[in-house]
């Protein structure tokens, strides 16, 4: 059943040493029934969060946003503006909290770092040849080191999905371990790209693999393939971090990314966190949203709660 509860903690740290041990362990994880998981996720989505609870949730969600731009067309000007918005999402309202982090490509890190210096907003950089990860390992590691040296304190890496789907779990594991080393003190978020993993069983296995290899966060998606974060995928990942902590004592964060656009969506995720893993994860240190347009919707809803009037997009900055 779960690899939780009874397994000795030292056993798990040894798993990565052998392909066979890893495979046996990952394939021994309990299965996920797709229909049941999706029904549970949908059920949590029907919670009705109103008034004070909604205000609380919106501010928490803002603090959890990894404000992201990952475009070929990104420029220093664009990412500086984004970083400024991360610091003061609603210039008209000083009570509005700052976001969790800004997330950009490695080349854009220095420009963001200038703006964020001295603030509590984290600077995340994607790395390891994001989004495909199809590059030699040394290049992926160099990519990671460059981002950290330029000022990133969080690295969002991609796993080698090809190796994972081919069953070469040790290869995936070793890459994560190496990337974690390259990160130094920076936090490592491991992107599973769940849209390419296809099944919830795979999502659960990849989650455990990433955690066993030392990931600080597990993240759903790059945002660059058609299926990004979904509630049921996030549910399976939350169950994984919950069971992993029970087994090892180490807490790992979760970051759904891509496709989360509205306050309503964000609140559904917070409800799911609340009822699946509990308040320990209801904190920007342990749960993040990888998003861009979500922030403005959160701000509009926040204004609606204070003024009682529905806001319009013209009243919020577009950065």
């Amino acid at each position, binding site marked *: *059943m*779960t690899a*939780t*509860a*009874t397994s000795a903690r030292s056993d798990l740290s040894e798993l990565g040493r052998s392909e066979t041990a890893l495979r046996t362990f990952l394939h021994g994880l*309990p*299965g*996920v*029934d797709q*229909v*049941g*998981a999706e*029904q*549970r996720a949908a059920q949590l989505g*029907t*919670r*009705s*969060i*109103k*008034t*004070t*609870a*909604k205000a*609380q*949730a919106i501010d*928490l969600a803002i603090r959890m946003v990894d404000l992201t731009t990952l475009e070929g067309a990104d420029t220093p000007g664009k990412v500086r503006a984004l970083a400024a918005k991360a610091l003061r999402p609603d210039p008209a309202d000083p009570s509005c909290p700052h976001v969790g982090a800004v997330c950009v490509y490695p080349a854009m890190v220095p420009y963001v770092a200038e703006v964020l210096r001295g603030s509590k907003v984290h600077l995340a950089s994607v790395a390891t040849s994001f989004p495909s990860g199809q590059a030699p390992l040394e290049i992926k590691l160099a990519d990671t080191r460059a981002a950290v040296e330029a000022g990133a304190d969080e690295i969002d890496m991609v796993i080698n999905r090809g190796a994972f789907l081919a069953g070469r779990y040790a290869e995936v594991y070793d890459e994560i371990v190496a990337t974690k080393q390259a990160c130094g003190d920076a936090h490592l978020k491991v992107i599973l790209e769940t849209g390419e993993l296809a099944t919830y069983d795979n999502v659960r296995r990849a989650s455990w693999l990433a955690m066993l290899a030392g990931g600080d966060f597990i993240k759903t998606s790059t945002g660059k393939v058609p299926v990004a974060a979904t509630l049921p995928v996030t549910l399976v990942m939350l*169950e994984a971090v919950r069971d992993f902590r029970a087994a090892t004592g180490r807490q790992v964060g979760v970051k759904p990314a891509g496709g989360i656009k509205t306050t309503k969506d964000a609140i559904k995720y*917070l*409800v799911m966190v*609340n*009822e699946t893993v509990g*308040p320990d994860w*209801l904190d920007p240190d342990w749960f993040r949203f990888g998003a861009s347009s979500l922030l403005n919707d959160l701000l509009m809803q926040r204004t609606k709660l204070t003024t009682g009037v529905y806001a319009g997009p013209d009243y919020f900055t577009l950065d």
Partner: protein
Amino acid sequence: MFEYAPAPESRSVVDIKPSYGLFIDGTFVDPADGGSFKSINPSSEEVLAEIAEGGAQDVDRAVRAARKAYDKVWGPMPGRDRAKYLYRIARIIQERSRELAVLESLDNGKPIKESRDVDLPLVAAHFFYYAGWADKLPHAGFGANPQPLGVAAQVIPWNFPLLMLAWKIAPALAAGNTVVLKPAETTPLTALLFAEICQQAELPAGVVNIVTGAGETGRALVEHDGVDKVAFTGSTDVGRAIARAVAGSRKKLTLELGGKAANIVFDDAPVDQAVEGIVNGIFFNQGHVCCAGSRLLVQESVAEQVLDSLKRRMAQLRVGDPLDKNTDIGAINSAAQLARIRELTEAGAAEGAERWSPPCELPDRGFWFAPTIFTGVTQAHRIAREEIFGPVLSVLTFRTPAEAVEKANNTPYGLSAGIWTEKGSRILWMADRLRAGVVWANTFNKFDPTSPFGGYKESGYGREGGRHGLEAYLNV
């Protein structure tokens, strides 16, 4: 902490009248002897309305109205036209679903999210499904020209008031019968609103008659000489009494009675979904479900882990105001039912089982019972044998599939069972051996109008739902 603020559904969508008469021959009438009783909101003990108590004379009047409608209108009517009335009813239920859901939660105590998301959609779907049979009876497999029985006497329980009404009335009308239905005395309101819906659909007078009252009213109805068919859902004891009462008569009888279902979890189950299934199996509708998975049979090798997960999950259940959209567990339907649950749980503790409930604040007024599990239960305990009909789960363990089957079947009941394993062949092996009318695998408490439902052994006879559900209302 992330505390959810109250999110109450508005009561104003429904108008409750101060008092209701009996619905006979298309109109609301006063009872012959003027008796009445009160229907209360079990979550607050507030009186919702004064309800007429039907006596023997009223029952007689209703049966005569149903007979006349059968002879003159509904019996001779082409199936195609009966279908259209049933489709109309289905549509009106869809259109007025929020009103019906709120009323159901007020009168019954069940959470609005269940009445809204489960009961009402199923009610509409049931009428929709049987509407489609009304003009297709020769295709149903009961011969070229199956005939209705006549007047059906139907007595339904309080746990799913409107859904049980739909399960009874839809197939009866589709097959060409007319009905006299008695709703439960604690939950008559949605049936009375349904009577208004019949008026709105311009259903011919007398096709549906609703006679409210308690046990005596029900007895007068099932014993009436003018009825051709008796359908009952409720306790096994009452079912047995009805079987005796109709013995030697021409009345066709179907019974949907109690249960003590085993929900069987193997060591290779999809554990997170199994835990959801266990919770849904016993805490859905406060456990007021005849097919509830009230006995958890868990393989001994994983019992501890499953129970840990189950307790963690139970701590998330929100007990309280049925009209709050975030409530998972509402009020117990009546003081009498609450007393019965208390009596059996006290017996469980006295017989040595270990009792556990999550920390849970219960409202001061109304009838409430915290979700509860008993571990260390054996087959000999009362809580493993008797139907509690409340949010109380008895946990037993097993070692092998054969032992699971043996324990699951070791009960006079046989309504439903659950199996949790990722291994398909084991599901089918188990299903072959379980003496139960419904077997859910890797899911629980699923209902659909196309799917027959009903029990083995003392859980009753006959099936409701699906093509099979027509048989109860045809002369076959």
